[in-house]
């Protein structure tokens, strides 16, 4: 769906938002889930790496566990909560 090098809107929730210091941004030049993960870890460091290790990565609303998957228009980064 997305061509290599196109841009994607990334929305950060909860701890992902704390790690990034913002709720949403547009990231250019990444074509796959794996490339975007690498950019996020490079940009936001250990805190983001921890979120990505346990949180969900949803590409246009569909959860993705496959780093080779092509990105779409939007990615949501959502950590799970356990507390009740």
């Amino acid at each position, binding site marked *: 769906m997305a061509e290599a090098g196109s841009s994607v809107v990334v929305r950060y929730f909860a701890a992902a938002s704390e790690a990034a210091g913002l709720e949403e941004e547009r990231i250019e030049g990444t074509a796959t889930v794996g490339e975007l993960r690498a950019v996020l870890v490079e940009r936001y460091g250990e805190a983001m790496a921890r979120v990505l290790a*346990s*949180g969900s990565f949803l590409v246009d609303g*569909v*959860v993705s566990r*496959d780093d080779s998957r092509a990105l779409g228009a939007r990615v949501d980064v*959502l950590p799970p909560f356990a507390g*009740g």
Partner: protein
Amino acid sequence: MSFRGHTSVASRSYRAFEATAPVDRASAARPTSASGCDNRDMPDSARFARQIVLPGFGDAAQDRLTASRVLVVGAGGLGSTVIPTIAGAGVGTIGIVDDDVVETSNLHRQLVHGTDDVGRRKVDSAADRVRELAPDATVVRHPERLTAANIEEILSGYDLVVDGSDNFPTRYLVNDATTLADLPSVWGAVSQYGGQVGVSWASRGPQYRDLFPTPPPPGSVLSCAVGGVLPTTVGVIGSLMATEVIKIITGVGDPLVGRVTVFDGLSGGFRELAYGADPDARPVTELIDYDAFCGIAPADAATTISAEDLASRLDDVTLVDVREPWEAAIASLPGAVLLPLGELPSRLDEIDTSRPAVVYCHRGIRSASAREHLEENGIDAVHLDGGIDAWSRLVDPSIVRY
């Protein structure tokens, strides 16, 4: 999906719940009121007047609430909000599952329990509150932990499940069991200053596993006990959960199927995330071992010591507390040296290695990491299974739980 995209309240009533909430079965089990007058099919019109008058609600919606049977998993923070709210709204039968007792550290947010309830079973305390609010409601107490062995029998008595549990194995268990039974499950969760809420309902849309297909590694997600929780988050998320319960039962509105509402108390804002089915998911066909699925291994005798065993040899070991100073100030084991996990690598020389070392923390997560670190540095050690919390439960109740 048929219940999405409508605009008027009336047209948004998708009436789906009628199929799963047989009025006769539920009302037949309802008791008569204290006056001896059998009012099981007549909700108290004055009590519920302010909601019956709502557009799209009416007597029909109230009758559905009266006939409904809701199981609330967890009488903690979220349960504390959901249980009195759905009791007040007129849900006819409320089941409460919890195997825990009320702790002092619960009281700031678990408002269904009072100071005098400390030490009582949570199901008893919560059931008392329901009786005060809704004397005609039927309350069923389940003072046990939900397991793959008992959940199907328990669920057979209910039309809808509310998951306000505090751990991932229970969340996946509830999701899978409600998926197999095609019961709607309203789930919510909190952490620190925020929370999430959604609805899983197999025949209507995606489920919890479509959002979180893989459980996080043990210890990677903060519990309320470790990370803290602002008391208002359970009020906000619990109220949203109760709203979904009422909507699903009455058929009013659009349930949060395929959407998650995320609350951030620090910004004061809500955001919504839409999601669909995970194309790589394996269908849920049976219940599994959820502790194993979530990476929680049974205690390993080579690396752990039980609270009971430690109690019998407390004088023969070097006790290392890897918690933070504020935790040690609340509760500590006698004779322990305090070496917070972050400082451990630079303070290994403070450990007396003339006796076997036993490492402990709050619940046995940090101490497992600490034990590995000691082993890598040539110090033989075991860690206390379940931490000081298990010590308080199993050996010395005078040690404060937090």
